Each structure stands twice: as C-alpha cells, then as structure tokens.
C-alpha cells in the first residue's frame, strides 16, 4: 500500500514538473505569437545544403532537409564503422604480433590517439591536413582518372543508361547463380574431398553472368571519369573535404578503441585453442583466421557495438567543421523557422532510433555467431 502511494506521489511530482515546463513553453511561445506544432516542417526550407545523398533543393520542405541531415550522418557512420573495424582489427592483431617493431608502433598509435579528444583530431585533419592539400586547379591527379584537392576528392563512377535497371536484375541473377555454384562446390568437397576452389568458381560465375548481361543489353552503363570544374570536381563519385575530415578523424579515433577491444578479446581466447590449431598444422594466419578470431569475435561484439553507437553519436562532431549532419542542419532549421522545441525533439528521436537500430542489428549478428545451444 505504501509502495503504491509512494510511486503515485513520485509520478505526480514528475507530471507536475513536466506540466510546468509545458506551460512555460506555451506561455513564452504565445508571447511571441507561436504555438507548438510540427506543421512548419511541411513548408519551404529555403536554404541550400552543400552535400546531400538524397535529392534536395532549397525549395523542398523542412522534412526533406531533415532527412538530408540524417542520411548524411548515416553515410559517415556506414562508411566509418566498416573502415574503423578493419583498421581496429588490424591494430588489435598488430599489438600481439611477434614482430617487436609492429607491436610497438601499434601500441604507440593506440596510446596517442586514445588520449586526444576526437574533436581536436577531426579539426586537425580538416584544417591542418585536408585544407592544406593543393587547390582545385593544382589537384593531385592519379593517372588522370581520380583527383584529390582541398575542394574534395573524386574517383570514377558508373553512369547508368536506360537499361541500368535491367542490368541490375542480371546482377541479382548472377549473385544467385554464384551462391548456388558455391553450394555445389562445397557439396562436392564434402562428399569427395576434391579441392573445392569455391571462391574462384563463384566469383567466375558472377562475372560471367554480369558480363553476358552487359553485352545482351548493349552498354547499360558507362564509366564516368571526374574532371576539374571551375569550382568543384565534376562527375565521378566524390567526397567533400568536410565528409573526409569527419570520416578520417572518427575512423582513426574509433579504430584505436576497437583495437584495444580486439586485443583484449584475442587474449581472452584460451591459449589451448591456439596450441591445438598449431598442433593441427595450421599456419599462423590460418590459426588466427579459423580458430582464434571467430572465438574472439564473440567476446568482442558487445564492446564493439558500443563503439559503433559512439561512432554514430560522434558524427555530431561534424558540426564543428560545417559538415551538414544532424546538429548542423537542425541549427540552421532553427535559425530559419524557430520552433526550437519541435526540432530538438526530432533530433532526440532520430538519434535514439538509429542507436536502437544499430543495437538491434548487432544483436542479430551476435545471435548468429553465439555458441549454439548455449543460453546467455
């Protein structure tokens, strides 16, 4: 009885505080002749965004520019966690290498990078490294097909023609065919013990079907080589200096943490496992690839998930170098439209939902690699 009364009282206090905040907000907004509503989000945004992965013009709505911000942040996160995982895994393994020099360099990297704020590093990469590379007119050219300048970098890309969609179906078919061939080779290997050459067979099948599709449809795409334009690099797939700054800064930073996690997890795999692999005659690379790393991954995954979540939240540091991510764009939205509360609530919602999505996806991965039949 007392428990229930106490909880009711607690909730009552919380409700009164929240109500007070709500009344304050509506009162102050009322004085300025505004109200709490999300209708403004449908009106014209009216400001340009330098970089967007979905189509956008200043005439589109606030919703539209908000999604631009979210996709920009997601793009950095997507590319970043892949790169940071690769670099981090390499660092973790390097820290345990029998090679003294490599081990010490990896250790130095981790000790230095971990203890400098990510923001300082991002600004350093952006201001002191990326903006210091040659100007657009003097771009560094890589065989005349890719360019690096302080206005961004670009590499050749595919430009789809009319039949690009149809070719996509061919690629899909090629993937399925490659998968089936791979299964077939595995079965042959399991049954007869002949060398399976799975990778060669399946990639060959994929390439064959895709190339047939290319010739059947008659040039469904062409390769677009970037050129130096008057103000920017034109064509190809490019990244802006801001994107590069956030990406490089956060990858370098996060990799140091992932490296420590990987190192700890490898050490956590019992020594007997490695000795057993050695006794079976596996080479050092194979011991790592087939015996130690798969087990280490199980230990590492929860901590690595945390690093992915941190990465996602750290994209907000792009704000400081004017990368159009969520904090930056919502600031501009607030300057244009007011409605601070509504916009901030959207910001909270999107950060929380992407975090939840990452946790969920990583939980699925975790279930995939967890020991079968063991309940955790």
């Amino acid at each position, binding site marked *: 009885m007392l428990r229930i009364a106490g909880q009711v009282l607690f909730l009552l206090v919380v409700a009164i505080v929240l109500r007070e905040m709500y009344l304050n907000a509506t009162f102050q907004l009322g004085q300025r002749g505004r109200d709490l509503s999300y209708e403004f989000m449908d009106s014209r945004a009216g400001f340009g965004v330098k970089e967007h992965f979905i189509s956008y013009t200043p005439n589109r709505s606030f919703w539209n520019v908000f999604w631009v911000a979210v996709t920009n942040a997601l793009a950095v996160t997507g590319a970043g966690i892949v790169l940071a995982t690769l670099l981090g895994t390499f660092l973790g393994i390097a820290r345990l290498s029998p090679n003294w*020099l490599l081990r010490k360099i990896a250790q130095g990297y981790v*000790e230095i990078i971990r203890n400098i704020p990510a*923001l*300082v*590093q991002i600004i*350093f990469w952006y201001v002191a490294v990326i903006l210091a590379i040659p100007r657009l007119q003097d771009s560094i050219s890589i065989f005349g097909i890719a360019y690096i300048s302080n206005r961004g970098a670009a590499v050749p890309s595919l430009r789809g023609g009319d039949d690009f969609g149809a070719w996509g179906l061919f690629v899909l078919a090629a993937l399925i065919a490659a998968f089936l061939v791979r299964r077939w080779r595995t079965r042959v290997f399991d049954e007869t013990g002949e060398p399976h050459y799975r990778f060669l067979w399946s990639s060959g099948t994929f390439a064959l079907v895709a190339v047939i599709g290319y010739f059947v449809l008659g040039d469904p795409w062409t390769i677009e080589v970037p050129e130096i334009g008057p103000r920017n690099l034109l064509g190809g797939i490019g990244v802006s200096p801001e994107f590069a700054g956030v990406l490089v800064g956060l990858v370098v930073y996060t990799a140091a943490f992932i490296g420590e996690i990987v190192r700890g997890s490898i050490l956590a795999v019992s020594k007997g496992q490695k000795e057993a692999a050695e006794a079976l005659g596996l080479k050092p690379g194979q011991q790592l690839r087939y015996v130690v790393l798969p087990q280490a991954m199980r230990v590492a995954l929860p901590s690595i998930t945390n690093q992915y979540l941190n990465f996602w*939240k750290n994209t907000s540091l792009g704000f400081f170098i004017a990368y159009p991510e969520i904090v930056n764009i919502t600031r501009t939205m607030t300057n244009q439209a007011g409605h*601070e509360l509504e916009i901030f609530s959207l910001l909270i919602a999107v*950060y*929380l939902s992407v975090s939840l999505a990452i946790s969920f996806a990583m939980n699925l991965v975790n279930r995939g690699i967890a020991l079968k039949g063991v309940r955790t």
Partner: protein
Amino acid sequence: MSDEIRDREMRGLREDVSAAHLPETGRIVETAPVKEPQSPLEWVRYNLFSGPFNSILTLVTGFLLLTVVYQAFGFFFLNSDWRVIQVRVKGYMVGGFPLDELWRIWLSLYAVTALAGFSAGPTIRRPSRRGIVVAVVVAVVAVAIVGYAAQSNLVRLLAAAVPLAFAVGAVVGRVTPRGPRRKVRLWGWILMFPLVMVVIRGFDGVPPREWEGLFFNLIAASVGIFASFPIGILLALGRRSTLPAVRGFSIVVIEIFRGVPLVAWLIFSKFVVDLMLPPQLNLPDIIKAFVVMTMFSAAYIAEIIRGGIQGVHSGQYEAARALGLPTSRMMGFIVLPQALRATIPAMIGHFISLFKDTALFSAIAVTDLLDSSLRLGLEFLGQEAQTLVFAAAVFWMIAFSMSRWSQRLETRLGVGER
C-alpha cells in the same frame, strides 16, 4: 612472493630468476625454460627477422616509421614557427583571466598538486632504471616547454614551484601514519573542489564567464565529475528499484541522456531549455550548460554503477537480509561499497572521456583550450597546425597521466582479483 625476492627485483638483480620458482617447501616445480640472456644481435634476429614474413613486415613498418619520424622532426624543429605558442600561452592556459587575479589559479594548482603528492607519495617505490630514464626525459621535455613558452621569469619560477609542492606533499604523506593519512586523503579530495571554487570565486573573485582556456576544461571536467556522481548513484539505484514507476523514470532519463550526443545537449542548454523554464529565472548560459553536462555524465555513471551492482555476489544480499538490514542500509553499507570499488577503472575511464569532451564547449561560444587554439588573429594566420598540435599535446598529457594513474590504482586495489 617474499619480501626478499621483491627487493631483489626492485634492485634490478635478475641473475637469480629461477629462485622465484622455488616454493617454500623447496620442491622444484617444472616451469618453462628460462630464456638465455641474448646478445643484441640475437634479440634483433628473434624479434624482428625470425622469418621471411617477419622480415618484410619489419622493413615495411620500419620504412613507415622512418617517414613519420622524418616528417615529425621537420614539423617540430625545422619548418614551423612556434612563436605563436610563446605569445599566446597565457590565453591557452587561462584565457582572459584577469592578470591581477592569477594568484588564485596558482594557489589552487599548488593545493591540488600538494594533495596529489600527499596521496601518491607513500606509494612511490624505489624506481627501476627504466623508470628513472622515463622520468628524466619527461622532466627535460617539461623544462624545455615551460622554459620556452613562459612569458617571464616570474612565471618560470611559479611553474617550478609546482613539482616542489608535489614533493613537499609526498614527504608529508610519507611521514604521516597510515590512519590519519587515509582520512586526510579522503576528505582532502572531497573538499578540494569546493575549496578551489572558494579560492577562485570568493573574496571578490572571478565570475564563471571569465573562466577560459585549459583552466575552463579542467573546471568543467571537475564539475562534471563531482556533481554527476551522486546523481549517477541515484539513477543507478532507481534503475535497480523494484518500484516500476521509479525504474521506468530512471530508464527513460538514462537512455535519453545517453542516446543523444553531448554537442546536441550543449546546444539544447543554450538555445532550447530557456523556453521550458520560468522566464524570470534567467540563468547564465554556463550554469545551464554545466547542469546539462552533469545529467549527461550522470547517465553514463549510472550505467557503470549498475554494472558494479550487478557484479556484487547475491550471497552478499542474502547475508545482509539475514542480518535484518533494511533495503536502504543493505544498499548503503553492503552493496554500494563493493559495487563502487569494482567500478573504479571504468569510472576513471569515464572521467577521462568527460575531460576530453569538455573540448565540445566551443559549440556554445566558450573559449576553452581548443577554441582559443583556433583563434589565431592576423599575425599568425594559417598556423593552426602548430596551435592544434599544442592543444592536442596538452589534452594528451592530462588524459594519459589519468589513464596511467588508473592502471596503478587497479593493480593496487586488486580489482577483479577477489
């Protein structure tokens, strides 16, 4: 390990290593073969060129390392003009803090280092040869930097008094008997922050809007540490509570503050939160920012402590119940002390990242160390590389010493061993 062996090892006498494997009974235990002492050439062969793959690896990484060292050498000693640091160093350290009031900061610095010396002094052992080398290198670098950057001999003298304060503290700490020492240490650290606040603000002191530079970063981190700790404990207990209302509330608060990045929260504190507070309240920006940062930090601390509480063995709860303790005392006297002890490493890790996060305050127009290193003025235009490297080095030194201290504490407390 017996005292005699420990003494030997400390004196660097290694010739009799195998004696360490002799247990008290005198029976010889089989151990891995003791490695023969190696000549430098053998060491190189074994560690760098043990096989073709290893040799290639050594050559490639060696080449990379040389390139980096070469570039860094050029940057530090040949191609850069470091005058900007010399001219601006006061700005980086304390910003626009009034010159006449600087004694307040020096005084606080001496107090903190003396207490640090008092706490660390008794744990200092006779250093190994390697320790001496490291200490000498650090001292030389520190003297060189301070000597170069300081603007007057008075500053050099005042800076030289900092290690002196540490030494005095260490000596006093060593002669103080264990009982009083622990009490002074505990209360010293608890009272240090309020004391510093009084020295800075009290007696016609300096208001928060004039706290700038590294001094601001340190104060902000300390505020975060001290204020968020009790709130974090409350949130952690709330999350473990059996009352659904309290638990739900704690979960919502923790997850919302943890799920949104600190930059967004700081901007919230400056531009949004005013709308929800009574108009007549009119808090200064920096106070609102500190409150929001405290909540952000408390959410993380709550999760760390929750982990610690979950790690306390269930037998401890049962024993407390068997003694008839009510929940509040069980938590306060049995569970929390054990939980907190187990979380010390994670806690220091969080404080390090909180300190690093104080760089984000430039988002709300606070001239912290990072922000002031980006304000170059016409004279030094385009010299961000130097100032940023300087700021990074300062952040690094503090964060790195904290992490080293945490490692020492971990071994001394034997966390994870009981």
